[in-house]
Each structure stands twice: as C-alpha cells, then as structure tokens.
C-alpha cells in the first residue's frame, strides 16, 4: 500500500517539484503538509489540500474565494500564495504557501506554559505593528479578514524573513466594497473570543472595524498571555447573540450606553435581549485592571481605542499605526523575535511537529525505508500534531485553518497557476482599448464615496 501509493503520487507532475516531509495539521477543509522545493536554494512550503466534497460539487467555494483574494494582494505581512495545483485524478486542489514556523498562539502558549514569563515589549510592539501594517493594507483594498485570532497570525522562522508577521487564512475574508448583499448573510463570523460586540448583537451591516476589535483582543492577549474575553459559545443555533461572550466583555469594559454608542438601538439583539443584558451588574469594571497597564500609558490608550464599543469610533488600522505607542522606545522592527537592544534575551520558540507517516492522500503509511528528515528533528509519534491544551472554540460549519496555519518564508516571485499538465500556463490579459484615468484615481474616488443610495438595494440587477 505504501509503495503503491508513493508510486501513484510520484506520477503527478506537480508533486515532483517538492520533497514531501509530512503532515503538519488538518481542518474541516482538508490537510496541511510541509514540503521543501527541489533545487537551490530550497525553501519550505506549506501545502494546503482542499478535498472534494462528498456531493461532488466541484471546486470548493471557500477555496476559490481564498485563491481569488490571495491572488489579488501582495504585502510583506500577508501570507504568500506561491502556487495552486489542481490534481486531475481526484479533482482535489492544493494551495502552496510559503511556510511559517510560528504563530502567535504558539508563541503565547510557550511564554505562558514553558517560560512563565511575559513577552518582551519590543516583540509585542513589533508583532502588533506588523499585524496592523498588513491589516491596513487589506482594509485599504476593501478586504475584511473576519477571522483574526492568534493562530491565524503567523511569524516566520529563521531565514531571510525571520520574525516577519504574516496574516493567514482568508477562507472567511470578503471584499466589502459595495456588496450586493449584507455581509451578515454569510452567517456567523470570527471566532467567538475575538468577535466584536456589534456582531454579537446581530448587526446586519458591519465594517472592517470587526477586524480591529479582534486585533485589540490579540494585543491584550500578547500582554497578559491569556485571552481577554473567554466566553463560552452556544453552538446550537445560528443566533448571533451570545450572552456569555457579551457578559465577559461587559465585565471588563462596562455596559455599552446609547450615549456612547448611538447606533446601539438599531441592533436587533440589543432590543430583544436587553433584559438579559441589563440583568447583570458589573462592579470594578476596568480594562486597566485586566491588562495591568497604567490608564495614562500610550499602550493602554491604544488598546482602549481598539476596544471601543461604537464601530464608527473604533480606531482604524491606519490610525493605529500613527499612534503614540509606536513612536516611543522601543521602536518596532522587522524581525519581531530578535530585539535590537543587546540587553534583551532572545527566545527560541519550538518548531512544529511533523507527522512523516501521512502522505498527500491523508493515509498513514509505514515510514519509507529511506530516511526523511523532519524539520523539527524529532517526531513524537503518529499523534505528534495533536495538542494537549484546548484551542479556542471554533464556530460550527466554518471552514478553518488547522492549528498550525501557514505563511510565507523566503521571498519568491509569484508562480503562475498550474496543474499537472501545464504548470506555468496562465498569463494575465491586460489591455485596454483607450487610455483612461489611472486606477488609483478611481480607487480613491471609491474610497471617498459615501454609502450607496438606499434605492439601489431595492433594485435587482
């Protein structure tokens, strides 16, 4: 079986450009593998496999959407999609990403469980700075991520891009420039601990501010090494209202008021569930007590503005980058893991376990006779990728990245889309009959435009 399987896979042409090392994770969409490119210099690649649905309904819409979005964007702090392979034999789809060794979840867990020490200021600031840089880029291109959480924020391992942050997992991302339907039609989004209050109260229309709330939660988690609002999710219904999560938020930030959040009255669940909400009373509410920051410090000011209840007053990513916090020492840097100051101690974070017995089909085989070196240099066993610590609760039905997300390592030119027969066959058509105004001008106009007139909603195209 193993030999046969190996032979079969070696027939797929696109597989031959990689040395497959093993499985590093799995999720509802399929599996994630670690591989290295052949040739010099070799680099690490994470291959994310989208399996064909049982209904045989062709390419997964989530995969199409993720590829579509990642093909459109290029930024140092966003994961790089290196290639897409379509396997004709079983119609499965493989996305090749530059591999990132670390993610914020693992970094936080390492400090909490192993070092029992907080993350140093330089690293926190640099991680946040780069995350905001990538997010500002996404938002300026009308893209909402909608699933920001520590496990989706990757950090590159040793190499040319050591310590660079990469935003990953665009399965829930959307372009929200004049959407034809309310974004809430996509159902419940954002993992619950990082979900903004307007989402929890059933907002039909929301903006990129939901991403900034999640960043605020991540910032606090980097400071305290534990999730800021750790509510229990009721999964039975598709009801966006989650009393426990809101309770956790109000306990820290206090009750929202119409005075501070005027559009609160129009949120469906503020009206319907106001008795549940008002029934609780919160004493000693104060964000500074939880994160142990002086209310006068720039870090506290930045955090509190990210966790503003009113989405319209919440800080944007671009505004956050201009905040005083990033202008005081220590200044943020490109390598978030290696402080510039000589006095600080460098932390060596562990690498991900690799399950070398699983092939691209997802079948566990006996190890091949030839030795395959795992990246980590050690393998706990068939269950190496399992985690002993419980993860944040995932929303039912949402496509998820595995615990180990993927991201870029080593800059490389973006390869063309390919399948087994025609790896480099795709080329973009780009020709306009007449000269026209630059796209930038038009994009700016779009940015400045107010919301589209209400009459458009009632009309179908």
């Amino acid at each position: 079986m193993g030999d046969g399987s190996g032979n079969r896979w070696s027939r797929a042409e696109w597989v031959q450009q990689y040395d497959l090392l093993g499985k590093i994770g799995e999720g509802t969409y399929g599996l994630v593998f670690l591989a290295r490119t052949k040739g010099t210099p070799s680099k690490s690649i994470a291959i994310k496999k989208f399996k064909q649905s049982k209904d045989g309904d062709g390419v997964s819409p989530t995969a199409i959407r993720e590829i579509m979005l990642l093909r459109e964007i290029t930024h140092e702090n966003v994961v790089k999609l290196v290639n897409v392979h379509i396997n004709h034999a079983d119609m499965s789809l493989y996305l090749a990403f530059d591999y990132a060794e670390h993610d914020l979840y693992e970094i936080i867990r390492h400090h909490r469980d192993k070092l029992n020490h907080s993350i140093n200021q330089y690293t926190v600031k640099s991680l946040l700075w780069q995350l905001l840089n990538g997010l500002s880029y996404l938002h300026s291109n009308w893209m909402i991520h909608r699933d920001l959480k520590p496990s989706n924020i990757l950090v590159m391992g040793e190499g040319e891009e050591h310590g660079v942050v990469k935003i990953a997992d665009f399965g829930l991302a959307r372009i929200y420039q004049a959407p034809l339907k309310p974004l809430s039609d996509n159902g419940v989004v954002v993992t619950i601990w990082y979900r903004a209050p307007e989402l929890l109260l059933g907002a039909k229309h929301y903006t990129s501010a939901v991403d900034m709330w999640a960043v605020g939660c991540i910032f606090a988690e980097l400071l305290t090494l534990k999730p800021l609002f750790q509510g229990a999710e009721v999964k039975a219904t598709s009801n966006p209202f989650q009393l426990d999560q809101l309770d956790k938020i109000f306990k820290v930030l206090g009750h929202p008021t119409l005075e501070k959040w005027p559009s609160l009255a129009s949120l469906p669940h503020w009206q319907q569930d106001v008795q549940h909400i008002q029934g609780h009373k919160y004493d000693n509410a104060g964000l500074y007590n939880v994160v142990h920051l002086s209310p006068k410090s720039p870090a506290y000011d930045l955090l509190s503005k990210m966790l503003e209840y009113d989405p319209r007053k919440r800080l944007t990513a671009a505004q956050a980058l201009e905040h005083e916090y990033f202008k005081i020492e220590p200044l943020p840097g490109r390598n978030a893991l290696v402080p510039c100051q000589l006095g600080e101690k460098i932390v060596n974070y562990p690498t991900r376990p690799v399950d070398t017995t699983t092939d691209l089909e997802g079948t566990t085989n006996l190890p091949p006779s030839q030795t395959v070196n795992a990246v980590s240099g050690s393998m706990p066993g068939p269950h190496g990728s399992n985690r002993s610590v419980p993860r944040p609760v995932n929303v039912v039905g949402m496509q998820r990245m595995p615990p180990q997300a993927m991201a870029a390592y080593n800059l490389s030119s973006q390869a063309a889309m390919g399948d087994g027969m025609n790896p480099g066959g795709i080329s973009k058509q780009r020709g306009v009959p007449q000269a026209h105004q630059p796209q930038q001008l038009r994009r700016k106009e779009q940015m400045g435009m107010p919301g589209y007139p209400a009459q458009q909603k009632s009309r179908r195209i």
Partner: protein
Amino acid sequence: MIYTAIDTFYLTDEQLANSPSRKDGIDEATETTLRIYGCDLIQESGILLRLPQAVMATGQVLFHRFYCKKSFARFNVKKVAASCVWLASKLEENPRKARQVIIVFHRMECRRESFPMEHLDLYSKKYVDLKMELSRTERHILKEMGFICHVEHPHKFISNYLATLETPPELRQEAWNLANDSLRTTLCVRFKSEVVACGVVYAAARRFQVPLPENPPWWKAFDGEKSGIDEVGRVLAHLYSLPKAQYIPVCKDGDFTFSNKSSETKSQSTPKDVPQNSSPADTDNSVPKGAQGEANTESNGGKGAMVNVAIDKLKDSKRSDDESKGMSTEGEARDEPILKSKADHIGETRRNRDRDRDRERDRGRERDRDRDRDRTKSRDRDRGRDSDKEREREEAERDKLKDRGHRSRERAKDSGHSEKSKRHSSHDRVSYSSREKDRHRHH
C-alpha cells in the same frame, strides 16, 4: 492608495478580432451568435434555478472572458455556459448543486433543440458523465481565469449616475434593462464598467429624448469616454438587430448534448453518411426538415451527394455574403430555398419564443402571490419589460414574413445605410444607431 489587479480583464479590438475561435476557422458572425446563445442559456438557467440576477451577470462575464482565451471549437458552448452559471453561483454565494444545474440544462436543451422531453436518470452513466464534464469545465474556467474571477458590473454605477444627472425616473429601468442586455455582448471585456454604465445611461436618455449636459460633458464626471459610450450604443443597436440566437454545432470533437436521444439519433445516422465532410451539412439539415424535403424535390430527385453539394454552396454563399456585406447575387431559382428555409426557421423560432414567454408568464403568475415583497414587484416589472421586447421582436419578424417584396426593398435600404454610415462622423453614426433603435422599437 494601493492599486490591486482587480478588474483588469480587458482586450483590444484587435485581440477580439483574433480570438481563439477565429483561429479555428469560426467566423465572426457564428462566434457572436454562440456568445449570445450561451448567455441566453446562462440567463434562462439562472431563472429556473431561482438565482439572483447578480449570479447570471457574473456568469455571463466569465463566459465571455473564457472564450477570449479558448475556442468554441474546442469547448462546447453548452458545457461552458452550464459551468459558468454553476461557478458564478458559488462566487456570488448562492451555490447550487451540480445535479440541479444538469437537470435544468438538460431540460432547456430538449426544449430549445426540439429533442423529445425525457426524464434524466440520475443513476445513469450519462448523468455521471455530465457531472464529470461540469466539474472538468469548471476547472478549465478557473485555470484560464488564473482563479481571478472578480466581476464588477455596470449596474452598480447606473443609479448613482442617474441621480447625479437628475434624470426622470423612467430612465432607471431602461438603463437597467440595457445593462442586462449588454452582458450578451463582449462590451464587458472591452470597456470598464463605468464606460458601459455611461453608455447605457446615454442610450436610455436618447430613447426618452432627455437632454444631458454637454458643456462640460457629463461623461467626464463618471470616468467615461465619448468614443466608448458611442461604441456601447452601436453594439447594443447591433444586438437588437440580430435574430434570436440558435445553437450552432462547431466542436471539432463532435457535438455534445445533455440529452440521450440526440446521441442515439446521431449514432444511427452516422453509418448513412457517405462523404466525411458532409457531417456538418447533415447536422444543419436536421433543423429545417421541411426545407430539406423541398430542396430535394426541386433538385428533381437528385442524389444525396448533390443535395449536400447544393447545401455546401448555400453555405459558401452565406459566408461570402457575410464577408462582402453586400446583397446576395444568387439567381432567383436558388433564392427560393433560402427564403423558404428562413421562413420555416423563423416560424420555429416564434414557436420557441411563444413557449418561453408562456413559461415566463406562468412564473410571473406564481410570483404574483407574493405581492407584498418589493423585490417581487421590481422583478415583475423587469420581466414585463423583457416580454415587451420579445413581442416587439416577434412583431418585427411577422412583418418581415408578410411582405417579402418589402424585405428586398428594405435590404436595399440597409445596404444604402451601411454605405452611408462608413462616411459619417461619429456623431452622425450615433444619430444613425439611434434611428435604427427607434425603428426597431416602433415595430
């Protein structure tokens, strides 16, 4: 402001003229007909699948983009149309099952091509093969698009433009309908959405004789260009001058059907083919059977080969007509079968259209029960307009049928107009196309 690659799939006129289909020997008129036919399939199937119009709009744009990269001779128009509407339903977040798409396309094919209405066995090999073809074609489309399938539609801009120009409310629906019709053409791969939006706004304003400001020119405020706007009007006028698009088999690998009967029929007729190259002729024969019989009679019981030769000559004559764009110089004896063939063709077209309209009316009646919903009202209004347009077209063709002598005179007129238009300036050309459109609507 960071520029992204979104909305970059545009071609020059030269690239369109040298399309992959042209390189495979498919002439421009045939490719145009097949593009319209494919878009008709996408639109109708979307209605049957109860998809929002945005899905059909996206599907039609993907359809046009795909055939800018691939030939109609190598990818059957019915397969691609089915996969485009299926893919668009995923992209626009209204996914439909492959089973639903196949059932709808199978039924549409039986109706449009007069195959016996049969039940599609979901456990037959035919169905499994169709499903595989749908997935395979979907992957081809994604691959050719490089997985970049963002589509921006002119509809987004129409309401804003009309509001800014402070035009009467009746222009909105007219511009909307024109934008929907523009999707059947290659305007979406030639001009940005803003230009198409300006073009349909302009055409609607001319239709209702509403003046738009020209000093300064109104289109400059909307990223439009006069030449592009004029071209939009010309292309739409040309679209409305065409008869209803019919399926034309052009695939090198033989014809494709969703239905079983046609396959069986074709396999039976295959042994009867004497010359190899007459296969397309046979396929063409199957449509107007009466014409074929008459042709046989008129040729005095000529042999099959002679009939095939004659039909080939007719085809050559048609092609040369297209090339020279002049009147046919055929003798009167040969004109007769052409006329009869057209008559039968038009009759059949009308029958098909009647059936389509009946179906639409039934659906409208069902929807009328939900009168409380605004969307339903808007939809009914829109559908009514489409029905009106079809009626206009039908009446126009009925007039043609009634007066054959008049038609020859009209042909002379058309010839004169085409000669004149070559010498006119762009402004005059606009005037010409506007007149053409008015005449079309007047009928």
